[in-house]
């Protein structure tokens, strides 16, 4: 939590003035029982109606003044907490975007989004409560005891003696329930996860006739959640009765002692009434404290989750400025590059050394998990090589500012993902200030222009989240147009045309070639038909390049390539 107070700095005024006004409200409220005691002692004893009415007026005035103070405090609290949350949210979002993929992959999108919304909301509530109640509740307790010292210090000692007992009760309950609340949350997640599995795997579960076992699994998980809930209930149901019994005992003792002291003539009836009132004030304040403790526990957990993200230093440093690449150097070069997704795990790429010339079309083929996609994702630095160097235009990729490096590369990812907005918006992702003509040209090359122009709203047609309102083939063509619009030096198509039929696909490839002769194109695919026309084909197997050359050459020299070809076409077709 401590580290996050930086975000409160801007709201220092609110954070100081808010509690001060709350403090004033509490003072006004604490004075009420004392005034009431005066009213009963002097007013009733002396039979002075005017005095009673005057004091009544004072009490109403104080109540209103208190309300005014509360009003101001609540306003400051709202401004400070919401402002804090807003700033923190911006900072966390910015941090998340700056993380490398290996860092953000560890969390997953839904966890990260939850932290931006739920966790920060929790902290926002915490700040508001701090300003509104954190000062008020203890102050009411301490103030009540102080005020009672003015009335009669003997009786006040009784109230004072009760405080450690009350503190002990709060401590005991919190200590016992806090871990239970945490495990309850975990068990709730477990119930949710069994449920999700059952929803997504219903065909398999029913195919294996496992409905009964799954019901049993759910029941176990559900029962364990219920047991945990009951355990919380057993302890927390003690809180109210215990604290109020403690305060009630105080009242009985005050009456007992009061009786003795009144008998001696040191105490008036009005004072006893005031005492009882203060005891009740303390009780009410304690109930608020118990609610606060739950909020604090939850907020601490949320703060830890936020700090976990804010503490991550983006592990992909991007230099502020870098050298210009040389136009004579090869477009891309891999020098003895190895890479593993996990430090201990298996290597996805091993000792890759290749050079790709400017304007060359490279086909990249290989089995699932052979390292094809990993190979191309090292170029835009989605990941950094574990060993060796990746160079673009003769400069190691690490020396370019990320922004500049990625501007050189247009990538079409495997998963055709579009974003909410219009078609033109989506294509402009590649280049924010692209002219309308550039957008149209990119769409034409990507073979998307035809279907876009048939839409009633053309390029302004809305795109739903993820591109859900377009077919797989249309989505792919739009993502290709998005990559083409900036006319990148290197174009990477990572299995990007799997949903296109062969005719469209070959049209697409010729259009890309015709558009530019200097653009370097990397075609990643599982289909021999797509890569066979490339200038050179890299054959990946198990993280290594096992063959490199034209289709014809590889058919003769590379057994893996031959095997792949023959799994997709007949001998005669492959030999063509």
């Amino acid at each position: 939590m401590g580290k996050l107070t930086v975000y409160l700095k801007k709201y220092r005024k609110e954070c100081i003035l808010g509690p001060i006004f709350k403090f004033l409200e509490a003072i006004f409220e604490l004075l009420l029982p004392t005034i009431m005691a005066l009213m009963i002692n002097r007013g009733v004893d002396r039979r002075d109606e005017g005095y009673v009415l005057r004091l009544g007026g004072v009490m109403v005035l104080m109540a209103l003044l208190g309300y005014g103070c509360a009003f101001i405090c609540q306003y400051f609290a709202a401004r400070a907490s919401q402002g804090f949350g807003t700033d923190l949210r911006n900072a966390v979002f910015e941090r998340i975007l700056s993380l490398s993929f290996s860092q953000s992959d560890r969390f997953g999108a839904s966890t990260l989004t939850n932290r931006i919304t739920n966790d920060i909301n929790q902290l926002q509530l915490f700040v508001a409560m701090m300003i509104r109640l954190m000062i008020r509740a203890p102050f009411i307790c301490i103030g009540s005891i102080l005020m009672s010292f003015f009335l009669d210090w003997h009786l006040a000692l009784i109230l004072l003696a009760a405080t450690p007992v009350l503190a002990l009760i709060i401590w005991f309950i919190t200590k016992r329930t806090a871990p239970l609340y945490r495990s309850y949350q975990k068990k709730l997640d477990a119930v949710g996860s069994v449920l999700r599995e059952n929803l997504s795997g219903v065909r398999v579960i029913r195919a294996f006739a496992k409905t009964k076992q799954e019901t049993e699994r759910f029941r176990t998980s559900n029962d364990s959640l219920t047991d945990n809930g009951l355990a919380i209930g057993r302890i927390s149901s003690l809180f109210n009765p215990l604290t109020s019994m403690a305060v009630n005992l105080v009242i009985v003792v005050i009456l007992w002692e009061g009786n003795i002291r009144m008998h001696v003539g040191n105490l008036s009836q009005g004072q006893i009434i005031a005492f009882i009132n203060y005891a009740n004030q303390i009780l009410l304040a304690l109930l608020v404290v118990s609610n606060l403790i739950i909020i604090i526990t939850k907020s601490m957990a949320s703060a830890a989750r936020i700090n976990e993200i804010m503490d991550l230093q983006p592990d992909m440093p991007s230099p502020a400025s870098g050298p210009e690449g040389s136009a004579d150097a090869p477009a891309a070069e891999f020098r003895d590059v190895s890479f593993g997704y996990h430090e201990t795990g298996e290597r996805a790429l091993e000792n890759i050394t290749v050079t790709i010339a400017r304007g060359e079309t490279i086909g990249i083929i290989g089995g699932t998990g052979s390292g094809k996609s990993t190979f191309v994702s090292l170029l835009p630095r989605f990941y950094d090589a574990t060993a060796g160097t990746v160079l673009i235009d003769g400069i190691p990729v690490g020396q370019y500012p990320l922004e500049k490096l990625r501007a050189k590369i247009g990538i079409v990812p495997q998963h055709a993902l579009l974003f909410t907005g219009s078609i033109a918006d989506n294509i402009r992702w590649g280049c924010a200030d692209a002219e309308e003509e550039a957008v149209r040209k990119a769409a034409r090359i990507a073979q998307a222009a035809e279907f876009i122009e048939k839409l009633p709203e053309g390029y302004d047609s809305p795109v739903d989240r993820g591109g859900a309102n377009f077919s797989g083939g249309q989505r792919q063509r739009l993502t290709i147009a998005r990559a083409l619009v900036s006319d990148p030096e290197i174009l990477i198509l990572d299995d990007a045309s799997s949903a296109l039929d062969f005719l469209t696909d070959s049209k697409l490839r010729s259009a890309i070639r015709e558009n530019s002769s200097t653009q370097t194109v990397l075609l990643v695919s599982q289909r021999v038909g797509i890569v066979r026309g490339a200038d050179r084909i890299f054959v990946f197997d198990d993280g290594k390049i096992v063959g490199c050359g034209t289709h014809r050459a590889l058919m003769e020299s590379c057994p893996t390539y031959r095997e792949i070809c023959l799994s997709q076409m007949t001998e005669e077709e492959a030999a063509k």
Partner: protein
Amino acid sequence: MKKTFERLLQYIGQYKGSLLLAAFSALVSSVCALFAPLIIGRAIDGMTAAGKNAWADAPRVLLLLLLVYLCSNIFLWLLNYLTNGISYRTVNRLRRELFEKLGVLPLGFYDRTAHGDTVSRFINDVDIIADGLLQGFMALLQGIFTILGAIVFMLTLNPWMTLIVVLSAPASFFTARFITTHSQKLFREQAACLGKLNGYAEEMIEGKKVVSAFRYEKRARQDFNSINAELYETGVKSQFISSLSNPSTRVVNNIAYAVVGVFGSILAIHGSLTAGGISSFLIYAVLFAKPFNDITNVLTQMQSAAASAQRVFHILDLEPEPPEPEHPAALKDCSGHVEFDDVSFSYVPDRKLIEHFSLDVAPGSSIAIVGQTGAGKTTLVNLLMRFYDVQEGCIRIDGTDIRSMTRDGLRSLFGMVLQDTWLFDGTIRENICYARPDATFSEVERAAKEAGADGFIRRLENGYDTRMSAEGGSLSEGQKQLLTIARVMLANPPMLILDEATSSIDTYTEAKIQKAFAVLTEGRTSFVIAHRLSTVLTADRILVMDRGHIVESGTHTELLQKNGSYAKLYNSQFSHGNSPE
């Protein structure tokens, strides 16, 4: 709304004993809590009256006060304890019933509804019901007893004072109510704004690769900041207004406190009330206002509970699958003879899908089904497995109508591999022996080897004991598919269904798996659905489906010679391999 409540009451009605005891506890603890101020008033008056003499009744009266307090708190504890128990048990029961219901719902439910929504009904809605109904119910009980009891106690003291207290309490109730209704509108605005922010953040974070690839970070940040600024505006307003609710009721209560004090004092001056009486009334004024505030909260809680209950009951009221036959037929030594006899079926009544479909599959033969998306290939499997029931005609296995068997009995005759891999949260080994939890390790290993999965499993850090999260951790789609294939290999069923089983695996790996499948399908009736034709070349019979009908049928060579739809489909995938560059 009324019906929903009646139905909900049936659920807590289960715990009639606890419920009655809870109501009784509420009564006792409220009455005791109300009795205490009366005794305090008496005590103060007793002391005053005794003057300089010792008040003789002190021990007796104070002991009574102590007992009343003790009694009040014990029953308060009992009330808390019981409502907690009832609440958690009701939740448990509702969740269990919901889950059991899921087990008998037809597959259409799973295909039509958003899973996130169903999960939310299980978790959030059920919780809201428990909170709203039970806490609300109990607060209501306690409130009613307190209000009625307080009126009775106060009347015995002084009717005029009672009138003042009774009039002052609802004032705070209406103040709170006024603020709540206003802040609710603001809360809805805030929730909408938060939803928008959540959606935007999720979209950008999910698409983070694309965001960085296209250097969209700055633009994303700007958009996020502006939605966030909007959220700030609505947030400050709604938080400020709603946080006024407490101080506002407090100011009303404080003014009422002053008014009660003034009137009490004046009555005391005129001799119709004692000082102890004032003290009692001051406490009653506080006690009396509390339930009104509680009820404000309870009413909103109950409204949302009713809304959530409707969402839960909606699932519970869905039409289940037709019941199992009373005397189910059981097949021993299934030979694998499958007949589709004049079968018709459609998912949507006015869009016919499969019409008068007949097919006789000889034991041990392999049937491939090919065709465009939406041609009805997977529907055949859905009918065969009784994920959906035929609307006309019937399907027979070894001459027995599949509807006369139990669903589980029927399904255990088939081994099925689907395009979407499904692995549950457990180790790789547990996932492979899903069908046969008693399988030995060497059996698991053999199945994995046959499926070609043994190699990569061994290379994992924890081998067969690697835990799969629901998403399958770091395994590739192809590797996950190999695990599901191993799962079927181990189950060793008499018939097989491969529904696009190798679509997400590359052709090279697929070629290896095909060999394993060849071993598996040997002598077993098998249905292979495929989009990629390379996988169906060796089938005994290939069915080409189009819009619910079989348009062609025969072996690969026969169909190529026919030069019809199949040949067209085949050529589009193979002959254009020679790209025009």
